[in-house]
């Protein structure tokens, strides 16, 4: 149970632990898969509605219904095919015989997944300690600002410069996240409120910095920062023609570290204990306040890593939309990954794939479709009872985030 969902419900007894554990994991996987399928089906309905030919043929549906279904099917097929081509494997470009042709889509998926994994880990770690870090956006921005500033302002030898910029990004994110943790620990201010507010503070701070000489790139006409030195850029993994960069390795490494931290370390045990039951943790002599600060520092640093991979890898000059929605998508990644590092990596890959496929898909359906599918998947995962009702599954287990079902005062 502890590996599949943040916390077990106290009400459900656990008969025959080993067997139950397996069925629980199976159950989780099934619900996740069915959530995905249901979201795709609803997406398909939207595609059919959005398709002009299908809509037009619907006007003579009574006389010739076959047309409507044929056009709808064609639209749905082409849309999802394009999504697949953009994200996994595109036979059209693969026929060129170049490496980019074969691996281009995968490279895009990995590039998009990199910050999502880091951000998803950040939100997931906070979940496990009972906190909801909704401030990924702000932490990513501040992390990117720190990393980017070190990246263009300092001029260090290769290697050292990269390390310095990465560390700066981690520190930036950690500071911004830690601030919310500190406020929670010292004053009880709810982290959801403070992190939302800190997001907007960070957005405006970035806007301000992008208008300041020394940060903004000459000729000062556009809101874009100086480009990061090539010494401070994350090396590309598959050659110059593909965008996937070493940030991916950092994100994977972060997943391993978080997994170890939560599973084997004393700190991780404390964080999970605080997340499961703060009162009990306090009684056991753990400092709940300290845990809040520490977990928000860690969470912020992981968001900082997402910012680092954006500014030192994907997009080596800070712009106003350096976050590009990752802060909020990270929440969905963490929920899909059930706040568990391995699950988060896969969830990040899935949503990275959806992001990578959307430009190609845009020829057939508006690319917000990806956003809708993402939201629906997470909605169903958060409310497995809906999926169980649709597919008539047996009731068991609990929903992710159920342990967080508490109010502003909690």
């Amino acid at each position, binding site marked *: 149970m502890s590996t599949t969902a943040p916390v077990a419900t106290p009400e459900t007894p656990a008969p025959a632990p080993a067997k139950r554990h397996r069925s629980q994991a199976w159950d989780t996987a099934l619900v996740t898969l069915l959530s995905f399928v249901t979201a795709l089906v609803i997406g398909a309905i939207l595609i059919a509605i959005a398709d002009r030919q299908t809509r037009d043929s619907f006007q003579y549906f009574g006389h010739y219904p076959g047309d409507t279904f044929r056009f709808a099917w064609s639209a749905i097929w082409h849309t999802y095919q394009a999504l697949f081509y953009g994200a996994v494997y595109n036979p059209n470009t693969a026929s060129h015989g170049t490496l980019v042709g074969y691996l281009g889509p995968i490279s895009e998926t990995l590039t998009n997944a990199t910050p999502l994994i880091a951000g998803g880990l950040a939100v997931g770690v906070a979940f496990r300690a009972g906190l909801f870090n909704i401030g990924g956006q702000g932490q990513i921005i501040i992390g990117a600002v720190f990393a980017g500033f070190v990246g263009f302002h300092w001029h260090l030898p290769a290697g050292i410069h990269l390390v310095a910029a990465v560390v700066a990004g981690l520190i930036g994110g950690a500071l911004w996240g830690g601030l919310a943790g500190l406020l929670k620990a010292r004053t009880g201010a*709810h982290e959801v409120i403070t992190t939302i507010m800190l997001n907007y503070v960070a957005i405006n701070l970035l806007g301000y910095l992008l208008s300041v000489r020394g940060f903004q790139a000459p000729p000062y006409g556009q809101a874009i920062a100086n480009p990061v030195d090539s010494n401070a850029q994350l090396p590309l993994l598959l050659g110059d023609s593909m965008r996937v960069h070493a940030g991916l390795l950092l994100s994977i490494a972060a997943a391993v570290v978080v997994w170890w931290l939560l599973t084997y370390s004393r700190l991780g045990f404390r964080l999970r204990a605080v997340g499961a039951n703060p009162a009990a943790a306090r009684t056991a002599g753990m400092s709940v306040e300290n845990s809040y600060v520490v977990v928000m520092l860690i969470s912020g640093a992981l968001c900082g890593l997402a910012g680092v991979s954006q500014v030192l890898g994907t997009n080596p000059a800070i712009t106003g939309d350096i976050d590009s929605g990752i802060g909020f998508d990270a929440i969905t990644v963490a929920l899909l990954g059930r706040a568990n590092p391995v699950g988060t990596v896969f969830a990040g890959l899935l949503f990275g794939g959806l992001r990578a496929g959307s430009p190609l898909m845009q020829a057939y359906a508006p690319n917000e479709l990806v956003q809708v599918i*993402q939201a629906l998947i997470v909605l169903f995962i958060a409310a497995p009872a809906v999926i169980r009702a649709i597919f008539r599954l047996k009731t068991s287990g609990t929903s992710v985030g*159920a342990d967080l079902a508490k109010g502003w005062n909690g």
Partner: protein
Amino acid sequence: MSTTAPVEDLTVDHEVVDTTLSSRSRILRAIAYAVLGLISLVWLGTAVDGGTAHLVFDGHTVGLPAKATVIVVGIVILAIAAWQGVRGFGRRATPWAAGIAFLLFMVAFFSWVSTQGTNPAIDVVGLLQNSIALSVPLILGALAGVMCERSGVINVAIEGQMLAGAWAAALVGSVAVTWVGLFGALAAGAFMGVLLALFSIRYLVNQVVLGVVLNVLAAGLTGFLFDAFMANDSEKFNQPGVLGEIDIPLLHSIPIIGPLFFEANIVVYLTYILIFGVDVALFRTRWGLRTRAIGEHPKAADTVGIKVLALRYRNVLIGSAIAGLGGAYFTIGSVGGFAKGITSGNGFIALAAVIFGRWSPRGATAAALLFGFAIALQNNLSINTHAIPSYLLAMLPYVATIIAVAGLVGKVRAPAADGEPYVKQ
């Protein structure tokens, strides 16, 4: 909890603040006033070089000797600070003192702005008009938040409800007549409310998680449907027109007040009615007492026969519809067309207003007005002066909210059962 439950006619939170106003917070407030006074006296006093400040009220220009104004204002605010520090203000006087200090400070501030650069004249009424225009959706969103959270359901999805309302208002307004779009907005907001209520009340999903997901869903759906229908057929689906301005007879010819409050469209008047209506209903009716009861202690409410879940469903639906109406203001209330992400974070500012206003309709309205004023001021300053970066000014509402929830200016306390699903034992 036991101290606040029986209090019926007072806004509960005000009661809490006043009974706990310690000497510490008295001193803190005095320091806040003193800082304001010193900024006026020292910083603005030295920055103003003795020209004349021009403030325009409804076409009439008032010239003020800038330096003298700034210095006098500084001294008066320092006097308020001294009184606050030594004696403290009573329950009634506190908002007046704060209001007067704020107003005076703004006069000093504008005197300074007016002597900057090109010596611009400050159109005070225009600024206030902009503030109100920017506040209207914030107020509606905040009222939506108050409705939901007072009955124990956290509403982080205000942004999504507004976006859905904005979209539906544009679509329905285009297909039918402009004003019919209002019903589209109410329905779309309520639809988002159904999702919020169903998943939080029935399926017990964490309400903050749910709110975040619903925001993503609303942004995705409206963006998708915008591209699918409106973007290509804009004359057919995205030209709802703008709601006409209605001048209230007599009232609109009052100088200053008239153009500020009584020359507006129907959404603004509905906002007035809703502010009054929600406030009275929440604190003076049986429905309000029940709503507050299920937000504070659903179990107790249940034992006296209040249908907790049914009332929660109803309040979330009504609240979300109000947020949808707020969304309509962005399309048929102002620009006359939908664009992706048109609400641009206003739902989150409204959420901040709910919290800053301590979950009371009046407080939330005041907070929304303050935030609207901050945004209008920022827009104005970015034209008139470069001495204060507008981005830093734009942070103020958010920083203020952080300070408020951190308890630095009095304790902020949410309804006790806010966000906790109620499961009948």
